């Protein structure tokens, strides 16, 4: 058995370090890409924290409706996908709805933001959709997996 030259060993170690660093770099790149998609997303997520306590405490009356998620998915496709992406992954017009800020928000908070919009950041008010339809949308949003995109 012959010993490998030191230069090859160093090359292997460097390659391993580079490969180990790829996911981190990839994540950074993804984050930068997401930020480039919709630079104002922090403002939009921050808006969630402005929901009044009374609004955040509201429960989704359609929580146990078996059709609510499917109906919400249809409504999402009709009204929201244009800005938030087909899989709610975010576009340059609207932020990702898989983010923890959205997924951890209470149903009442999501309902409140749908009703009021974030007008200065381009999100229209959606109170023109009747309340039950907004709750159906909330059901769908809460069904999204925060780790990745889901199909609808």
């Amino acid at each position, binding site marked *: 058995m012959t010993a490998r030259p030191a230069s090859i060993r160093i090359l292997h170690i460097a390659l391993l370090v580079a490969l180990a660093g790829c996911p981190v770099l990839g994540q950074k790149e993804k984050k930068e890409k997401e930020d480039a998609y919709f630079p104002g997303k922090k403002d939009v997520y921050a808006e969630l924290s402005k929901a009044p306590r009374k609004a955040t405490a509201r429960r989704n009356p359609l929580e146990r409706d078996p*059709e609510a998620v*499917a*109906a919400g998915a*249809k*409504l999402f496709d*009709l*009204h929201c996908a*244009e800005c938030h992406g087909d899989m709610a992954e975010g576009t*340059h*017009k609207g932020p990702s709805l898989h983010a923890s800020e959205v997924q951890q928000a209470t149903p009442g908070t999501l309902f409140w933001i749908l*009703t*009021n*919009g*974030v*007008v*200065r*950041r*381009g*999100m*229209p*008010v959606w*109170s*023109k*959709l*009747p*309340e*039950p*339809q907004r709750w*159906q949308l909330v059901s769908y949003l809460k069904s999204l997996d925060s780790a990745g995109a889901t199909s609808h």
Partner: protein
Amino acid sequence: MRLSCNWPELGSRLETNMLDSVMKNGKFAFRLLLLGLAAFVAPARSQENPYIVTYDHYLEEPGNLEVEYFSTFGTQRGGNDFHAYWMEFEYGATAWWTTEAYFDGQTTFNDSTLFTGFRWENRFRLLQREHFINPVLYLEYEQTSGADKILKEVEGHDVEADYAIPNAIARKEHDHELESKLLLSKTFSGWNIAENTIATKNLTGGNPWEFGYAIGASRPLALKASAKRCSFCPENFIAGIEMYGGLGDRYTFGLHDTSHYLAPVAAWNLPSDWTLRLSPGFGLNDNSHRFLLRWGVSREFSGFGSAVSRLFGGRR
């Protein structure tokens, strides 16, 4: 296009022929425009209200363009019935500002067909969030002739007799109007209630401010959405009623010598991206047309702003 005043009859006839040609070409151009739009931007489906005269507080979604065509068929005592029509191009500049261009025309039966002018309308949302009542400021500049019959709003002492004047005479009157409205609207339990107060100033000839109103109420036939895509689902249909009329002018404010209408309205939001509207209107006093039949068809295109931006090298 305007000809010498020495040959008014010949001029009118020539102009009518030319305008007929423009109208025919206009229809072709409209189809081309729709094809062009369809090629570059995606259709968007939205929940459109059924009103034809009244405005609620909802603006166009940012970056979207809505192309609309409307018709008004009106019966006319002491004159010829008419068919007036207009095209609207409504663009959501931001979530708080919608801007819109109108192009009006009319055909008076046994008379002629005319292009009657254009309007530029802007609506500004005054409050960022939803409130008990939501105000929107409406500002419009219009340059129309006296032959304009679209009756998009009724104001001042507008009465049926004004529309009986033959086109050749009516078209000689040129109006440059500044129109403002305060739109108040509220949606609760599925019902939308909207009230518009109108104040109009004709900038030519020292005319006084004229006033008018429009009120409307509407509701979808179902509040919950069904899980499947469907054309005939009840949530796709919105029905309601609107009432509109004049309130006199600065010197003679009130209901004296004004016309008023009551009109059931209905809209059908199709999953194929089109919205159809229908509204039979009935005059409420002797100064009003007895019957107005209005209908409209519209289609919304998303990403129009982005498509235009891309044409000029903007971000994809």
